[in-house]
C-alpha cells in the first residue's frame, strides 16, 4: 500500500521542526504524534499539515503553539500510588545511606511528579540533602513547574492518591489555596533545579543515585528508548535506582541485562 499523503506530510513536518528548531521528534511513536498534530491543526487554523509546516518554518510563535500539542502535559501528582509506596519501602532505606543525593526526574512536564517526589523525600527526612534535577524539553511546561500553581479540582484528586501513596501528613500542609487554585509550598522547590534537557539529543549532565522517568518512554520508538535508557545507565552511580511508568519495561532495550528489578510490579530497577 503506497504511503498516504498525511503520513508523508507528518514526516516532513517532524523533519522541518528538527532542522529549524532542533527539537527532535523523529524517533517518537507516530500514532500519538499524529493525533496531536491533527488536533493542533484546528486550533492553529491550518487546513493541512503542509500548511502548518510552512507556517511554523516562518513563525516561531506558531511553532511554540505546536510544541504545546507535541508535548501535551499529562502529569498527575502521586500517579500510581503503589509506585511511591514501593519507593518509600524499598528505595528510601538505601538512599538514606548516602550523605548527599542527586535525583533526576526526566520528562517532568508541568511538575506534578517533582512535587510528589519532593514531598516524599521531605517526609522521609531526605529532602535537605537532596538535589533534584527536573528536566523537560518544553520551556512553557518547565515554567509552570517552577511556578507550582495547580487547579483546586486537580488537587482534590491528588489528595486521595497522596494518602494511598503512604502520605504521613495532611496534603493541605503542602500548599496554599486561593480561589480555585493552589500554590505549592516553596520549600519543596528549594532543592529543585529545573532545566531544559532532551533525551533525544542531549547527553548526561550529572551523576545521580535515583532517576524517575514515568510515561515518557512509551512515546518513543525502540531506538530512542534505547538511547534514553543508555543515558540513565550512564548517569546512575554504582547500584543506582531507576523508576519507570507502570506499563514500561526494559525488556525491549539493550540494557535489560544491566538492571535488576527491585519491584517488578511497580517498575523499580537497580543498576547491576
Amino acid at each position, binding site marked *: 500500500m503506497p504511503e*498516504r499523503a498525511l*503520513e508523508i506530510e507528518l514526516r516532513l513536518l517532524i523533519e522541518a521542526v528538527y532542522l529549524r528548531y532542533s527539537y527532535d521528534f523523529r524517533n517518537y511513536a507516530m*500514532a500519538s504524534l499524529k*493525533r*496531536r498534530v491533527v488536533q493542533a491543526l484546528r486550533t492553529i487554523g491550518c487546513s493541512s499539515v503542509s500548511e502548518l509546516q510552512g507556517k511554523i518554518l516562518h513563525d516561531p510563535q506558531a511553532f511554540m503553539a505546536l510544541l504545546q500539542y507535541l508535548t501535551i502535559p499529562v502529569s498527575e501528582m502521586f500517579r500510581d500510588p503503589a509506585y511511591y509506596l514501593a519507593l518509600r519501602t524499598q528505595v528510601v532505606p538505601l538512599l538514606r545511606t548516602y550523605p548527599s543525593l542527586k535525583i533526576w526526574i526526566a520528562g517532568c512536564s508541568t511538575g506534578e511528579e517533582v512535587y510528589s517526589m519532593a514531598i516524599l523525600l521531605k517526609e522521609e527526612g531526605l529532602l535537605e540533602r537532596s538535589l533534584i534535577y527536573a528536566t523537560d524539553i518544553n520551556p512553557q511546561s518547565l515554567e509552570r513547574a517552577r511556578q507550582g500553581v495547580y487547579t483546586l479540582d486537580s488537587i482534590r484528586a491528588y489528595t486521595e492518591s497522596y494518602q494511598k501513596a503512604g502520605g504521613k501528613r495532611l496534603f493541605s500542609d503542602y500548599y496554599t489555596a486561593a480561589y480555585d487554585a493552589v500554590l505549592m509550598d516553596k520549600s519543596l522547590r528549594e532543592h529543585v533545579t529545573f532545566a531544559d534537557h532532551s533525551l533525544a539529543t542531549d547527553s548526561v549532565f550529572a551523576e545521580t543515585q535515583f532517576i524517575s522517568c514515568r510515561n515518557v518512554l512509551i512515546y518513543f520508538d525502540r531506538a530512542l528508548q534505547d538511547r534514553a535508557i543508555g543515558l540513565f545507565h550512564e548517569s546512575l552511580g554504582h547500584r543506582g535506582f531507576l523508576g519507570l511508568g507502570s506499563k514500561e519495561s526494559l525488556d*525491549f532495550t539493550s540494557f535489560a541485562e544491566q538492571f535488576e528489578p527491585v519491584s517488578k510490579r511497580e517498575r523499580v530497577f537497580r543498576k547491576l
Partner: protein
Amino acid sequence: MSPTLSQRATRLQAVVIGMSAGGLEALSQMLRDMPEDFGLPLIVVQHVPENHPSQIVEIFQRLCSLQVDEARDKDRPKPGHLYFAPPGYHLQVEMDRTFSLSVDPRVHYARPSIDVLFDSAADVWGDQLAGILLTGANSDGAEGLHSIARYGGLTVVQEPTEALADTMPRSALKLFQPDYVLPLAGIRQLLLRMDR
C-alpha cells in the same frame, strides 16, 4: 469488480473490538468456542475504571480458549491472541504493526478510548481490518469505526435492540451505514468466517 463482503472477510489481518457498559458479557458470548488457533489477532478496548487493577485478562483466560494478554508497549499482535488495552492508557497500533501506549488526555471521557485504537488501526491495516462496536452507554468508537469504513475496512455494529446499552451502537449508525448490523450470535458466525 470489487470484492464481495465474504471475500473481504477472508483476507483480514486483524480485528479490533470496542465496548463499554455490558461489554464483558457481550464479548464472552461472542468469543465462546472461538478456536484457539483463530487466524487473526483480536484487539479490545473496554472502558474500565482507571485506578483499579483490572481482572479482565484473568476472566477471559477462563472464559475462552484464545491466548489472552494485556497489550504491552512494542508488542506485535499475534493471531490466536486476545489483547486488552491496559486501564488508564490509550492503546494504538504503529505503522510497524507493534502496539504503543499513551497517557494522552481522555477521549470521550475514556482512557483507553475506542476511537484512539480504531483510528490508529485503520491507518495501519486499511481494508485488511475489521472493526466491531458493541454495547455501551457512550459515543466513543463511532468515529473510529467510521474511519475504518473510510479506509475500506469491514465494519460491524451490534444490533442496538439487543445491546444492554444502545448509545454506542446507535452513535455509529447515526454517522454511517456499516457493512453489518448483527446480534451477537451473528457476529460470532461472522468472526468464524474471518478465520482462515
